[in-house]
């Protein structure tokens, strides 16, 4: 049957390209493997030519897939499930890429970066090309299976991004799409299916356009040291460690940037109330970075001294495996109840697990020297995975076995290790300790993050602790202390052995400076973080010293140790950046403040002994509200149809009159999954802090005021009731000083001092009154409002002069004004965090440039 208006060509082309990329990567894997194995130059070359052609074909196919998905999204072809699920017509063009990342497109991005890095390696890796690209091509093959969506023996493999809405069963049984005559889908169903369900509002942020590409570049880059490690074992040649160093630096830079861009996004969209919340999704990408950096350090140790080769192998292998594991965690939906990240769940748990497991086995299997051992490994792989179908904990056994065999293969391949002990006065000793601490930190983080996995494997019911961030911070603060000090002192040691007086002579000055600076900050009392007891606060201050020590010592080393040769100072710059990052994290987290403490008296909330949850303040349109240091007025709101946002204009006036500004937090309307509009914060940057405000709830109010004033008569001291409490007329005041602001020259005022006592026990003062200008004979009525009770009071008239009976008008109107509930945070010195990341990444890049092999044309001079 033909359907009117469908565009099937891009889908068919895209699906063809997906299958082509799968086949081409398989061919490339085999050909690179053969080329690497072969000892005959001619045969080696001919396999290599085939492999390169296959790899280039794959790259073209991948770019074609991306182009097809982009075409579908950009042209709003909602017959495709991908376009229907992830976009809609009102989406701004700049967010089309964000739609691409939301679904399986992130795999595409990952594959794309592997292609690019693979091509760079084909041009530069020389004798390592075949070995390294064998692994890259194999991983490409595994990832390509995620996108084909073909059934093998009744098991669906991957998710095809080009499936149609009508084949997904979403349109079945819906009367509107059904042809009255045949009872089947209408041929012109697309005239009804006119819009998609839209992009998740959280992703409609400019960070979401650039964060995923950089993060996935980081993901892809961890494969390169892993592939080098494989090639080294396979060829029994450990000189790969020299070529791998720039790649490990690159990975540190790319993955580090990607992770921190994610943090910047979390901060800007404020979906976590800060830039880091130890959310499983964040942890899962931080941990491979820590392990990669550990590997980089052991790699440098090996290059300079010959120690630590085995740990280099292990760290590089683990870093990539942890990337796969993180993909498994975030994509399989296993995190379900512990993460707030809104990833689209796909039914690919098994396939994602197998990807982790297969890559674990890949190195021992391929590097095993004889066929018998290979068969043995294959058998164990198959048996443990079949068993894991029935007993899930065999997945663990399978991975553990693979790791053990990795060690066995390394022993068999006689990976050299030096038996002589390192000197404690050597750089390598402390670098190695540092790598171990990094590994330890990552091990603890990933062990905690994996709690949902244990629940799945062992059927336990362990839930996250009460205060998740603190459960991480209380450990990691000690890691920060050790790392800060190690970053500070290690460069002052020389490799192999350091004369004691040399070390002492060089280190004393940075130490003294760091002690002075950190004492100045600590004693200034600005870091008074008592929430978790004195012990934790002492640890924070120690960590602050260690981090400052790291900054000072590394900046100092450029002059003390390297005599100002900045070109060679990549490591010092990266370390100074890392230490500064620790400083920024410590200061900004220890001093995060809530500014929107509810001081209006509107609330009648229960304070508990350890928390005061009144972090939201209600603002009525046009009413100035007291919020601690500031008075805030919700002056107006505007709606922008282009980005579908409603902006609240909030005027902040500091009580000391020095700091007035306007913020425009907004809410975005979205129809995805029938979501409510979601709130985006607005911020005011200062050099030393950021102020963030966002709407937590809002109400349009009733536009027309229909209720009228209800008259009530009372005397001084009398009490009358209104719907939710009572009014007491305390006394009649003539020319009361409190009323004078409303009085013009020449007028006399008469005001009623009324106490409003609500059912909940809140007490408010109201002072409705009249002002009389006897010269002109005019009377003005000045009503008063009690916003909290939606109450307007006015002084109508004197009802009976003899009985001193007065008449007041009482108007009650729920929601008479548009209102919003606001939360305001202050983050101090947050800019330190971002600056530090930039410095650290710059240091990594300097190190790469420094270590690039000298170009034959003499373009780049290696000094």
């Amino acid at each position, binding site marked *: 049957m033909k359907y009117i208006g469908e565009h099937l060509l891009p889908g068919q082309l895209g699906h063809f390209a997906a299958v082509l990329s799968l086949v081409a990567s398989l061919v490339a894997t085999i050909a690179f493997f053969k080329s690497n194995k072969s000892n005959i130059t001619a045969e080696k070359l001919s396999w290599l030519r085939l492999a390169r052609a296959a790899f280039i074909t794959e790259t073209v196919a991948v770019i074609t897939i991306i182009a097809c998905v982009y075409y579908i999204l950009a042209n709003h072809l909602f017959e495709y499930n991908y376009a229907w699920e992830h976009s809609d017509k009102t989406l701004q063009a700049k967010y089309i890429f964000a739609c691409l990342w939301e679904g399986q497109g992130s795999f595409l991005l990952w594959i794309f970066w592997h292609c690019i890095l693979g091509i760079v390696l084909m041009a530069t890796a020389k004798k390592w090309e075949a070995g390294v690209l064998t692994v890259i091509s194999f991983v490409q093959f595994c990832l390509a299976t995620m996108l084909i969506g073909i059934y093998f023996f009744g098991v669906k493999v991957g998710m095809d991004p080009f499936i149609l809405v009508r084949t997904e*069963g*979403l*349109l079945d049984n*819906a009367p*509107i799409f059904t042809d009255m005559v045949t009872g089947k889908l209408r041929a012109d169903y697309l005239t*009804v299916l*006119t*819009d998609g*369900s839209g992009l998740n509002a959280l992703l409609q942020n400019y960070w979401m356009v650039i964060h995923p590409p950089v993060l996935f570049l980081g993901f892809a880059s961890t494969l390169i040291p892993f592939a080098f490690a494989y090639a080294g074992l396979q060829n029994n040649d450990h000189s790969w460690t020299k070529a791998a160093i720039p790649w490990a630096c690159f990975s540190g830079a790319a993955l580090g940037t990607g992770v921190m861009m994610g943090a910047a996004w979390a901060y800007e969209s404020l979906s976590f109330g800060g830039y880091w919340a130890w959310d499983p999704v964040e942890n899962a990408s931080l941990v491979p970075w820590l392990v990669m950096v550990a590997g980089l350090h052991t790699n440098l140790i090996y290059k300079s001294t010959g120690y630590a080769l085995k740990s280099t192998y292990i760290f590089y292998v683990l870093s990539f495996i942890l990337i796969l594991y993180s993909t498994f965690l975030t994509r399989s*939906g296993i995190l*379900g*109840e512990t993460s707030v990240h809104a990833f689209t*769940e*796909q039914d690919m748990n098994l396939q994602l697990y197998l990807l982790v497991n297969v890559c674990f086995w890949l190195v021992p299997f391929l590097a095993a020297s004889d066929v018998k051992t290979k068969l043995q490994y294959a058998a164990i792989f198959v048996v443990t995975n079949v068993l894991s179908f029935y007993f899930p904990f065999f997945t663990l056994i399978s991975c553990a076995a693979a790791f053990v065999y990795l060690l066995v293969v390394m022993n068999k391949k006689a990976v050299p290790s030096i038996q002589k*002990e*390192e000197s*404690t006065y050597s750089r390598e*000793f402390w670098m190695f300790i540092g790598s*171990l*601490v990094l590994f*330890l930190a990552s*091990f*603890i983080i990933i062990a*905690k993050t994996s*709690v949902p996995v244990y629940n799945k494997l062992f059927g336990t*019911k*362990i*839930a*996250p*602790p*009460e205060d998740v961030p603190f459960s991480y911070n209380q*450990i990691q603060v000690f890691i920060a202390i050790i790392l800060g000090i190690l970053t500070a002192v290690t460069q002052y040691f020389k490799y192999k052995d350091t004369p004691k007086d040399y070390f002492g002579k060089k280190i004393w000055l940075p130490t003294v400076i760091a002690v002075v600076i950190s004492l100045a900050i600590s004693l200034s009392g600005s870091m008074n973080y008592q929430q978790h007891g004195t012990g934790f606060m002492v640890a924070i201050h120690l960590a602050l010293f260690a981090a400052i020590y790291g900054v000072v010592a590394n900046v100092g080393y450029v002059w003390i140790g390297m005599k100002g040769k900045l070109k060679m100072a990549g490591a010092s710059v990266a370390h100074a950046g890392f230490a500064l990052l620790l400083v920024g994290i410590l200061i900004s987290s220890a001093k995060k403040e809530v500014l929107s403490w509810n001081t209006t008296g*509107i*609330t*009648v*909330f*229960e304070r*508990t002994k350890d928390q005061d*949850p*009144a*972090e*939201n*303040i*209600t603002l009525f349109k046009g009413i100035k509200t007291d919020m601690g240091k500031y008075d805030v007025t919700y002056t107006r709101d505007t709606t922008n149809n282009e980005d579908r946002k409603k902006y609240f204009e909030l005027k902040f006036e500091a009580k000391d009159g020095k700091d007035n500004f306007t913020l425009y937090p907004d809410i975005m309307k979205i*129809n995805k*999954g*029938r*979501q*409510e*509009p*979601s*709130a985006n914060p607005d911020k005011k940057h200062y050099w030393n802090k950021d102020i963030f405000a966002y709407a*937590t*709830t809002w109400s349009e109010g009733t536009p027309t005021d229909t209720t009228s004033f209800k008259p009530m008569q009372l005397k001084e001291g009398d009490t009358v009731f209104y719907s939710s409490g009572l009014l007491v007329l305390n006394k009649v005041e003539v020319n009361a000083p409190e009323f004078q602001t409303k009085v013009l020259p020449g007028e006399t005022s008469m005001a009623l001092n009324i106490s409003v006592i609500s059912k*909940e026990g809140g007490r408010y003062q109201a002072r409705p009154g009249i002002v009389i200008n006897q010269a002109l004979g005019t009377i003005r009525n000045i009503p008063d409002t009690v916003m909290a009770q*939606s109450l307007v009071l006015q002084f109508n008239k004197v009802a009976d002069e003899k009985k001193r009976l007065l008449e007041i008008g009482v108007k009650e109107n*729920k929601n008479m004004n548009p*209102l919003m*509930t606001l*939360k305001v945070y202050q983050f101090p010195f947050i800019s330190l965090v971002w600056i530090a990341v930039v410095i650290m990444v710059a240091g990594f890049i300097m190190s790469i440039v420094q270590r690039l092999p000298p170009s034959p044309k003499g373009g780049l001079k290696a000094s």
Partner: protein
Amino acid sequence: MKKIHIVLLVFIALSIAVLISFMGNLSTYETIASAKQKQGKFVTLSVKMDKSQPMVYDPVKNPNYLAFTALDTLGNAVQVVYHNSKPTDMEKSERIVIGGTMAGDHFECKNILVRCPSKYKDDPNAAKRNLYDQTSSSQN
């Protein structure tokens, strides 16, 4: 024995100690009935909002007070009190995960995690309903 081995052993011991102490901090997933047995202990519940019962949230009166009734899979109900603003999407949620303590007959909630119905996997019909909503509204 090399110094590095001693360091390694110390690190291993430390990390085990850390993980054991972490285990002490963890809470458990409970049902409403079992949570009631553990008064005052921090627990985690995976529940649904009972939409037949009224939800109390009035930012005019108190923007930091939310109360609603939660139902667990066994059909037990409990009143939940949360001293903070109402999470957006709360009414549309398929399921919510709440952490807090039982205080007498009600649950004092400290954190709420809303599971949104955009996860079509849990409920394929959610996607269909969503589609009908759109198409029927675009017809109007």
